[in-house]
């Protein structure tokens, strides 16, 4: 057994075939073989299979980007109408025990570390609530020691007072711990696999619990078993062959949806961004055309999923992406700690640089002008 497959003693092992299904899907992929006819077939189908998705993300798919965009927009309208869902992330701690060589929060990076106490969290939430937002995504770095489950549950309970929909993006947990998050009021859980390529995963994740590949990969399934209503996925594009990682992410959702059809699924398509520790990181290996191609392909293959467009992207790109494929947009974003409340002097550094600094109001107005319908909440905790 290779090292990244060795679970820590406290990590729960669930009976799941999902990892094998994904790895089989991405084995020996030749994206160059797809033809114009394959794209036509995929665009004409109502319910696509994985083979069609491969065609859509292939180089030939890129040549047909306009057709992909038209098809994606149609499906977006059918499933979501003009709705665009708003949220913002709230980073409450940036302590991390993982050594992921591309990440700003890497435990070896010399950045300002901090964790908000409950009073500070409440102040931040109140500031954010003033902007009209009703959905919040609570994030931490991955340190179970510095931000344990109880700390996160308490933060969720505070957030529940001010927000109607609460997402959590933290380190992977066992099923019983996910149950606690749900009982505290969390609605959905996001875990990025970063890359599904095991060799690359091993090289990029050099230490910490995150190094254990299958434990991370099965997080969403444990969250579902723990009672969460929705789960979100993402590969950090730029770490590995982006087509392969996109295919893996899509198949991850596809197979889990088959197994758990009642769950709400969501995807993010983050590109690598420069961090405090590494300004040389360049996301341009995947340019905006390729990014849009991926978004369209997801929308056509999995038309019912939510899709978040990150503040890593420019305002122009985001404005257009939500009309074609994406359904969720973050606004008034800071990826640092304690930055919403201006009276707070106790602050921590950012995870990555953002490209769209617009406030909630600004994005709201722009989307209205574009004849889209901003939605602050479309959810009820039951």
């Amino acid at each position, binding site marked *: 057994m290779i090292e990244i497959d060795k679970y820590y003693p406290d990590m729960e092992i669930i009976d799941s075939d999902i990892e094998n299904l994904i790895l089989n899907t991405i084995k020996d992929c030749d994206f160059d073989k797809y033809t114009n006819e394959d794209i036509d077939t995929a665009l004409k189908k109502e319910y696509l299979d994985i083979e069609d998705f491969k065609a859509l993300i292939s180089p030939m798919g890129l040549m047909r980007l306009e057709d992909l965009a038209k098809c994606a927009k149609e499906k977006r*309208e*059918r*499933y*979501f*109408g*003009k*709705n665009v869902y708003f949220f913002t992330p709230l980073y409450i701690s940036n302590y991390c025990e993982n050594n992921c060589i591309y990440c700003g929060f890497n435990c070896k990076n010399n950045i300002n570390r901090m964790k908000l106490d409950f009073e500070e969290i409440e102040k931040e939430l109140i500031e954010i609530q003033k902007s*009209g937002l*009703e959905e919040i995504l609570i994030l931490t770095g991955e340190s179970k020691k510095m931000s344990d489950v109880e700390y996160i549950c308490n933060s969720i309970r505070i957030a529940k007072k001010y927000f*109607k929909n609460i997402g959590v993006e933290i380190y992977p947990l066992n099923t019983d711990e996910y149950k606690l998050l749900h009982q505290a009021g969390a609605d959905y859980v996001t875990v990025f696999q970063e890359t599904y390529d095991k060799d690359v995963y091993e090289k990029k994740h050099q230490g910490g619990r995150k190094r254990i590949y299958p434990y991370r990969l099965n997080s969403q399934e444990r969250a579902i078993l723990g009672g969460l209503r929705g789960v979100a996925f993402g590969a950090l594009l730029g770490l590995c062959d982006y087509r392969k990682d996109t295919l893996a992410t899509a198949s991850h959702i596809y197979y889990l*949806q088959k197994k758990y*059809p*009642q*769950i*709400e*699924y969501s995807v993010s398509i983050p590109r690598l961004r420069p961090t405090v520790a590494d300004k040389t990181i360049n996301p341009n290996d995947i340019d905006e055309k390729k990014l849009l191609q991926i978004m369209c392909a997801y929308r056509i293959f999995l038309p*019912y*999923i939510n899709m978040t467009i990150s503040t890593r992207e420019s305002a122009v790109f985001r404005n257009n992406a939500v009309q074609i494929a994406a359904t969720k947009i973050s606004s008034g974003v800071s990826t640092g700690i304690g930055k919403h409340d201006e009276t707070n002097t106790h602050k921590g550094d950012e995870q990555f640089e953002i490209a769209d600094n617009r406030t909630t109001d600004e994005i709201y107005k722009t989307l209205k002008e574009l004849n889209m*319908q*901003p*939605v*602050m*909440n*479309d*959810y*009820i905790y*039951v």
Partner: protein
Amino acid sequence: MDTKLKIGKYEFNSRFILGSGKFNIELIKSAIFEAEAEIITMAIRRANTSKDNILDFVPDNIKILPNTSGARNAQEALRIARLARELSGADMIKIEVIKDSKYLFPDNHETIKAVELLKQDGFIPMAYMYPDLSAARDMVSAGADAIMPLAAPIGTNKGLLTKDFIKILIDEIDVPIIVDAGLGRPSEAAYVMEMGADAVMANTAIATASDIKLMAKAFKLAIEAGRMAYISKLGKISEYAVASSPLTGFLD
């Protein structure tokens, strides 16, 4: 002369119900002023917001029909219905229990249970369902005040895929049958009304039209035409040629 549409203790002149899954202000205005709808559905989950709330756009004389969208089982449907009653005072509830995020198919089994729970709790339950006669009968026994069979998967505009099964419900079920989901064009609305459906619900077909106003009006007229045809009783269409000399003539 037509009778009114009766659902529980309520009566309506209009037989068009606007779905609001894909809502915007123009759609609601068109439904009220062009299609003369008297009932608009509202997902409670979608009304659980303080900004651009659908409730702010609906005039007082329009009946809000909250649905339990988001419920995955009977218990969740009951909880959402209770929230709906708190929020809008509504007692007429459209039960939607869906356990499938891809096709959004209603779960008949859980819906039967939900009807029973809501009825006991004093609601007027209207059951969104896959047109299955046994399930519809069980829903009526459990207290459903209307049965709302889907014509096609929701949002697809595919039209009358389940036509024959809806006809069976129309023939056998004694509470109003409201055809819900999947109707893509006014002619299909006319068709089901002609067949004897009591009302029609539509959303996507109007919301995604280029001219929302005109399409809303087209639906209204189609529903009225279909209804008139039903009341006036269609001339019988014969499946075979009618022999000019009757086969039984020799008996005379």
